[in-house]
């Protein structure tokens, strides 16, 4: 059984890394022929970095728009961030100091994450506009994350798993030396769903993760009068 999971995680990691890399290369290679930042936009590159920072860390545009979605979404994402940071301890040894420091707060982040996801799910069901634009995959994505969080929280608070064994298993994956997984229901569910998440990430709307950094309306400097912007294919038009 442990071997199956070892293989599953190797495959999932390859799909995730190659899939995302392929998308990132594709985005990077596709030219943005025109200057289209949503104005008022920063007039310097530093300004753009700050704008992007505010979008990624605070979800600035979402905040301007709807406070409820923002609250749920921010709870979910920040919770997720802390939870993932806490998880680093399964994969590296010795555990870096910042990661060790967040451990106590980290426990509650899991609740924030699941609560946020729950709010987003209810919104999707009850707001007719959001229901209209939802495909089955949109609900399933939330359920998937809720179940991952739920199974994780079960392990943290109810049926503890052997974290040392988990750590050895993943340590073994890196060195391909093998290792055993504790066969707890919660852990198996947690890991199976995580693998699914990793595999679908590059093929789903989770592409918003690289997407935001490549969005021309957010990442362009407003300097079109000062600096000529010309895409490669547009240059060819000039030569003909």
């Amino acid at each position: 059984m442990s071997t199956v999971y070892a293989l599953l995680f190797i495959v999932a990691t390859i799909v995730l890394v190659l899939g995302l890399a392929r998308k990132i290369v594709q985005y990077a290679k596709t030219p943005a022929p025109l200057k289209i930042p949503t104005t008022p936009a920063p007039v310097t590159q530093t300004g753009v970095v700050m704008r992007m920072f505010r979008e990624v860390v605070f979800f600035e545009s979402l905040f301007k728009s709807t406070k409820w979605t923002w609250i749920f979404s921010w709870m979910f994402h920040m919770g997720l961030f802390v939870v993932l940071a806490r998880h680093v301890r399964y994969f590296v040894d010795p555990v870096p100091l910042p990661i060790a420091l967040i451990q106590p707060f980290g426990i509650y982040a899991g609740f924030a994450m699941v609560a946020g996801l729950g709010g987003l799910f209810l919104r999707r069901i009850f707001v007719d506009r959001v229901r209209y634009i939802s495909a089955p995959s949109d609900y399933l994505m939330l359920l998937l994350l809720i179940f991952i969080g739920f199974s994780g929280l079960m392990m943290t608070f109810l049926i503890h798993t052997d974290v040392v064994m988990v750590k050895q298993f993943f340590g073994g994956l890196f060195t391909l030396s093998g290792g055993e997984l504790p066969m707890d229901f919660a852990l198996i569910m947690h890991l199976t769903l995580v693998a699914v998440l990793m595999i679908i990430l590059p093929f789903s709307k989770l592409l918003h993760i690289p997407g935001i950094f490549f969005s021309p309306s957010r990442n362009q400097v407003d300097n079109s009068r000062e600096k000529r912007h010309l895409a490669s294919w547009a240059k060819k038009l000039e030569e003909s």
Partner: protein
Amino acid sequence: MAKAKFETPELSEFVDVPNIEEGAMAHSTCFVAKPEHQEPLNFPGERVEDWHDKAIEKMGDLLSRYRSFRVYLDSCVKCGSCTDKCHYFLGTKDPKNMPVGRQDLLRKVYRRYFTFAGKYFPKLVGAADLTEEVLDDWYSYFHQCSQCRRCSVFCPYGIDTAEISMAAREILASVGIGQKYCNEIIAKVYKIGNNLGLPGPALADTLEGLEEDVYDEDGVAVKYPLNVKGADILLVTPSADFFAEPHVDGLIGYGKVFHEAGVNWTLSTTASEAANFGMFIGSYENMRRISLRVREAALELGVKRIVFGECGHAWRVAYSFLNTLAGPFDFLDPDYPVPQHICEFTWNEIEKGTLELDKSENDDKTLTFHDSCNVARATRMGDTPGGQFDIPRNVIKAVCNNYHDMEWDTIHERTFCCGGGGGLLTDDLMEIRVKGALPRMTALQNVMNEKGVTHMAAICAICKSQFTKVLPYYGMDMYQIVSVHQLVSDAIVLNRKTPPEEAPGYGEDDDD
């Protein structure tokens, strides 16, 4: 087409977010371009046999050429943040007029043909084949988007439905289903030089007429020059400025400002149109071809600077794209930005103190200002972000005593479109134009009731034409919409007197 009957929405104090009403605007459509409108733009005259394959092929082409298109189609998480931000949704309740609803019309086809999930699990991710019905939906709903970018302000990834609409329209035109209104106009620009099809001699006549009018009224020979070689400034302005009300009062104003500033300026028959409908139809090639006329005119006349008149999308193409499409402009005076907006020019002169302004001339009015969407969300004026909001307001406040803004969430970057932008300013789309104006009309009515506002100023030819038409539907007066430079024109004191021999018609035989 039968004249669609529709009800003008009723104004109340707030625009409530409506419950969705599926198919509420499915009947909306506009005239399809004829071969003579399509072919000059390098599009097939009629719908091609293999439209399905050609459309998918075109989509693939655009995906490889536009990062915006690709990233926006992939990134939407269906968070719903944009759903209540579009004036067309607020005015019609049709969920396909929610920005994401509109995008999804195209996204579902993208997913079906270009993504793994959509190829193998179409039901799961909401992917769909490109069918006749989908094509009809595209034609209908991508002509219910004014490309105003309001949705892009509120989307956490900046997804700009305008980009999707432009791509959709380009795909449609490339399989032979162009929109008559836009394509006919572009064809006219290629043939005659401007949107209105106003030939050179008629233009010269009109300008002479303006000189006479101003002379009769003010006794000063303000010039409205055409094709003057060696002038310092080339003014490129929307052709509506040449005669329609209230546009022409704006043009009169530009002339007076130039006169008082003591600069040499000229219009050109080569570039007698600032508008660039190539943007509306999403065609880089056509947009470029139209833009190049500005470069040509500047070279032909040997000017040092280019100034654009009051026009929203024209300013977007000018400010954001002109350097890309028709640059580099290294042959112009490097001390000035290329191009400049007339409001930047006027504000500059006001700051320098060259203009004497008598604000009391506008005391019969209380003003508010409508931020035109393209100016607000796709361009800038001056050196600092947000100058596009401040500079026109500064100009208005310098020439008027009474000014009040509309509600904060309907101005600046949150401004609501007039309802007629993006190639919708045609009578066959009257219903969507009237309904889409609802949020703006509501904000205007509120500021009229609360602050006693009487007039709304704008710096866009499309906004002005749209409001002239739409205000009466909401029980207001079409003359409530004014040009910013019309206000300047009324307040400016003409101190640079001119010798009598410069007066229009001097030395000609006068019978009266």
